[in-house]
């Protein structure tokens, strides 16, 4: 069952009078439960595609359906609601709100979703245990290592059971051991909870973990390999 359908999407950025085609007529489908990597060199358009799927950027041409909903038809507020309910994000860095503790960062999404506090507490406790950071619940991001911060970001991304988790270079700032642990965690969540993950990455290790690798080059899909 398709969770993301990208139809003939183009995205052009303007820098002064110069045009830069970040995506050029891209079409693809991502099914529920997939563990997919968007690969390619810098400037190939993988982050742009991830942003468009996540509804934080808008396509100049083409349509993107997320869970059957056309993102181009949604207003700013509706897009925000869609991101809140259906999408989890993990960014390369600066993932957490620095003034909130690890638990509060995870809980924040649930608060925005207006989930009752008793359920919130249960979910936060469970997800922190899943990512192995139950003992770090009351620590602020500055007191956590880079790997721990990314694990908290993953916990926040999946705590509200979104339709899809989009991760942009999640291992880029981590050493290989920490990166591997993070990928193990996400793979486990994909296997156990059927959470759909899409990564934008040029990390070989992430590509090795992915069951599908879509390679982008100059804004076009160069390859789409299912393992």
């Amino acid at each position, binding site marked *: 069952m398709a969770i993301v359908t990208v139809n003939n999407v183009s995205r052009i950025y303007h820098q002064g009078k110069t045009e830069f085609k970040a995506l050029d007529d891209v079409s693809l489908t991502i099914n529920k439960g997939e563990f997919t990597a968007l690969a390619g060199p810098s400037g190939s358009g993988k982050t742009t595609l991830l942003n468009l799927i996540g509804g934080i950027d808008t396509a100049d041409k083409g349509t993107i359906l997320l869970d059957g909903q056309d993102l181009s038809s949604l207003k700013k507020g509706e897009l925000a609601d*869609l991101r809140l309910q259906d999408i989890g994000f993990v960014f390369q860095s600066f993932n957490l*709100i620095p003034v909130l503790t690890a638990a509060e960062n995870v809980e924040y999404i649930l608060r925005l979703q207006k989930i009752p506090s008793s359920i919130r507490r249960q979910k936060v406790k469970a997800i922190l245990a899943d990512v192995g950071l139950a003992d770090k619940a009351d620590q602020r991001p500055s007191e956590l290592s880079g790997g721990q911060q990314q694990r908290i970001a993953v916990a926040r991304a999946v705590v509200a059971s979104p339709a899809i988790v989009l991760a942009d270079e999640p291992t880029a700032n981590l050493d290989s051991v920490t990166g591997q642990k993070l990928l193990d965690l996400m793979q486990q969540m994909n296997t156990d909870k059927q959470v759909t993950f899409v990564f934008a990455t040029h990390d070989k290790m992430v590509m090795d973990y992915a069951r599908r690798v879509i390679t982008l080059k100059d804004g076009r899909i160069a390859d789409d390999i299912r393992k």
Partner: protein
Amino acid sequence: MYIILAWRNLWRNRRRTLIILTAVIIGISSMIVMAAFSRGTVQGMVSNSINNLVGHIKIEHQQHPADPAIEHRIITPEKLLRQITAMLPPGSRVVQRIRADAMLSTSREHVGLVLVGIDPDLEQGVSFIGRPPAQGTLFGNQNQGGIIVGRSLLKKINGKLGQKVVITCQGADGTNIAKAFRIQGVFATELESTERAFAFVQLHTMQQMLGVGNDITEIAIQLPDNNGNPPVDLAATTAFLQANVSDKQLLARNWRQMLPAISSYLEMFDGFMLIWYLIVFLAMAFGLVNTMLMAVYERMREFGLLQALGMRPGCIIKMVMSELLLLLTFGCSISSVAAFITVHFFFSSGIDLAIFAEGAEFWGISRIIYPLLTSWDIIAANSVVLLLGMFTGLYPALRATKFSPVQTMRHV
């Protein structure tokens, strides 16, 4: 959650928050203290005026204000006094006086003044002459030849207690009358002009001297509470007296009618204060907007992240405004306490304006100002800062919603 987040965000940059908080505290405190000082000044002016033989309400012959001649007097006032006393609320004080323009002479000096015949016992709590004199004593019932003069007048005539002076004035029959008095007491008031303008003798002594029987020239009424704001409707009471006194030749006026300049100033006072608040706020507003903009711009990525996570623009505005609300509420609370402490502990014995006495007296301002802190001033100053402060915060808050998540996440 907004409040917790706002509170923690506020203290992310402790130094900046403390600087803007100090500016807010100084601004609001100065607003309130200045308002208390101004209100104390005005209240002093009002009290001085009311105590200066005006009273809350005065009843006199309708010709007397324009032409204070002895023929414009109240004839046999006993019945009228009983009638008025019955009409007034409990706790009111009613005094009768007779006044005439006169000349006070010593062997060296001649000074024009207003001679007032009073009943000293009744004047207590009604006018300044009811207070114990600065020197000497008030005249008792036996002493009919005593006169009380002001401290400044005594200095001017180079006189002393016990000295004989001659008062010359026009009697009811139009003849000039001269009578000798001994200076028995010296009164002191806030205003030197008052000390030079009046001299006091016993009511019945002056009535005899002028040959007017029991007639008087004015009835002064002090309503309960002597601070210019009696707990009854001043205008309604005045109108009621005017409508119900049996002698239609008489005119009842309250102090607002007798002192229109002060009355108008009082009416404009709150407006002046609001303008003052706005001016101080304007200076403060630049600091507030600047601080909030800095706080917003240095957290661009965070706002981008929050938007990416699904926070609606309205919630981002709420978050930024919560920070400002906390900052201002904190500032307002400390400022109000600081202003209260300043007024009650540092200025409780008044601010001595002796060095400006002559200039101040020109405006009827007391030598010592007692700042008057009212809840209205505290509420008005805090409201201006809170409401307009929140309004100025809208711009930085709106800016925070304009950051695109894609652009801010790229920004390092």
